[in-house]
């Protein structure tokens, strides 16, 4: 009765026969990419496609949309909220939420203005103190959350309200404080780099990416581990180089690369490296994925939580400082309104999960660009606010539908 199929004896450690390997050829790359597209494993690609669609549509409606001037403005418009997003992402990775980033940015702006303008302290010292005030606030939030056990939502809601009170109090009865047009603070957003610096940075970044990836894969191959082919590394480098060089060309057509945008990009890159390449980042992901497992692995979960909230508030403070720099003023409504919602939304649109353990620092950049492009385009088109609100909603949905659909097909595959 037995009908045994003969199975060849296989060496342990040999490549698993079930693993579908893409050939190291151009056609293999393409078929692999298609397979991943269908399987929803493409990471940020759907959102990038959404962004491209938004750009094409707006450009066809108003030819100024893709003009160097508008794109240059766009890069500056997203900086402040983008930095807050970057901090929010850290908190979202933990599976928590920070509602206070807007208020904290406002307080930091107020601290900066009071110190630098009213008290006449050296601007650089004032900036440092404003950033530190953000850090302190974050440590406070984190401690109440991690040590006392008040849900992060409530802690940071109290922060949202309370720091707004502090901001109003600091600004006093005059309300608005003007920041000088020509100081260090203003220069943060008023400085543009001359073309060759832009090119230097771009070529440097792409070169470092290529070299590190290429060497890394070579070392992997040498160690007998699965590695990407030279072709794939080259293709990836080119895919990176296109937007980077494109951005440099466009920005150089206007005033050059804005310092503030570089600061933002720098934070994104550093945070990305920190999250992916350091023990600290690994621990953040672990706590967000399964806090109890992380605790059992000997990770000091409370410390991670406190530090993440501290980072989030620090970044919010930096965002507040750049907002003050860009508006040449700190007002009682700095950081209020929909700043918080935009910061969280950028993170989520960029692909960071609200449920913890999944996401990347690049969400801040991508999501920020999507939201910034929508706003920028709609302002160019000049519509009634009621219509503008409705269209914003629709465009927002369109930008994420592609991502949602591909994610959904992955979810159908996920283990329950």
């Amino acid at each position, binding site marked *: *009765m*037995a*009908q*045994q*199929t003969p*199975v*060849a*004896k*296989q060496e342990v450690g040999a490549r*698993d*026969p*079930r*693993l*579908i*390997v893409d050939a190291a050829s151009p056609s293999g790359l393409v078929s692999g990419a298609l*397979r*991943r597209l269908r*399987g929803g*494993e493409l990471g940020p690609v759907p959102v990038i496609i959404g962004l491209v669609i938004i750009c094409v549509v707006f450009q066809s409606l108003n030819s100024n949309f893709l003009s160097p001037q508008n794109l240059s403005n766009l890069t500056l418009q997203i900086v402040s909220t983008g930095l807050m997003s970057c901090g929010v992402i850290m908190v979202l990775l933990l599976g928590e939420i920070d509602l206070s980033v807007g208020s904290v940015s406002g307080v930091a702006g107020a601290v900066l203005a009071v110190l630098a303008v009213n008290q006449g302290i050296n601007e650089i010292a004032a900036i440092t103190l404003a950033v530190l005030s953000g850090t302190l606030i974050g440590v406070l939030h984190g401690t109440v959350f991690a040590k006392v056990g008040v849900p992060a939502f409530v802690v940071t809601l109290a922060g949202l309200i309370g720091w707004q009170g502090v901001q109003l109090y600091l600004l006093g009865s005059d309300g608005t404080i003007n920041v000088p047009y020509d100081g260090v603070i203003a220069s943060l957003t008023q400085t543009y780099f001359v073309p060759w610096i832009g090119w230097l940075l771009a070529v440097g970044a792409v070169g470092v990416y290529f070299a590190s990836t290429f060497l890394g894969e070579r070392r992997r191959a040498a160690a007998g581990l699965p590695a990407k082919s030279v072709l794939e590394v080259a293709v990836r480098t080119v895919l990176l180089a296109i937007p980077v060089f494109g951005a440099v060309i466009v920005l150089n057509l206007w005033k050059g690369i804005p310092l503030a945008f570089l600061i933002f990009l720098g934070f994104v890159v550093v945070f990305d490296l920190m999250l992916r390449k350091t023990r600290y980042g690994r621990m953040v992901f672990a706590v967000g994925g399964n806090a109890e497992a992380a605790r059992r692995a000997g990770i000091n979960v409370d410390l991670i939580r406190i530090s993440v909230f501290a980072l989030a508030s620090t970044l919010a403070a930096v965002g507040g400082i750049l907002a003050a720099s860009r508006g040449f003023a700190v007002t009682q409504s700095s950081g209020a309104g929909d700043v918080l919602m935009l910061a969280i939304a950028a993170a989520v649109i960029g692909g960071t999960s609200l449920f913890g353990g999944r996401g990347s620092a690049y969400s801040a950049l991508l999501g920020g660009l999507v939201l910034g492009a929508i706003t920028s385009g709609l302002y160019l088109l000049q519509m009634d606010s009621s219509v503008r609100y409705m269209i914003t909603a629709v465009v927002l949905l369109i930008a994420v539908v592609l991502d949602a659909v591909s994610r959904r097909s992955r979810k*159908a*595959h996920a*283990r*329950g």
Partner: protein
Amino acid sequence: MSEPILELSGISKRFGAVQALSEVDLRVHPGEVVALLGDNGAGKSTLVKVIAGVNPADTGEIRWEGKPVTVNRPGDAQQLGIATIYQDLALCDNLDIVANLFLGAERTSAGLLDELEMERRAQELLDSLSVRIPSLRVPVASLSGGQRQIIAIARSLLGDPKVVMLDEPTAALGVAQTAQVLDLIERLRDQGLGVILISHNMADVRAVADRAVVLRLGRNAGDFRVEDTPYEEIVAAITGAADNPVSRRAGRVTVPGSEEA
């Protein structure tokens, strides 16, 4: 032999870059216990989920009582009369024991949940499986591993299934509970149900299974009458080699002194 109640042919299923199942066939007759065996990661649970409608197959055909059917949602399988105990148990940790037992099949009276009736039935059921649980009203998150498994097993007995699939049902169970579950499987067979049993415990398999179907790396690797087949032959089919850690270990233990460092 009677017509098979459930028959799969050519089932393939891929997850991303992994081909978890390739062209798998399986038949279950009423009143038959089929053991589905295979190494870790061989694709057993994936096959169960295909049949249960949790992860529909990419290609392949499912026949139920001879007629082709489509099973795209868990509800489809339940409607056919397939009850499933999943390896990961699939319990709602926030709900209490009674709520988990009756999930999706709550008893109601006058539109409201009949908690009394459900709790009574639950108590009966668990007593018959000789598990001791201090209180039926605690969330299942606080239960021990074996207690959770028993809850999952008890659940499948509530409906009136024609085929029961048990994915490693006794893995976390104590000796007494294991004996009860094996008794239970025999009772199910005697009532004419088809049973698919996944287990790594050869003793249990030999005790209750009629037929053993072996998967290896996602492919069929043998179909044996359990009674007629020596233990070593089945293990060799599972591991894919006559010389495997099991036989090595067996040899070593019987010949003490020949241990390697």
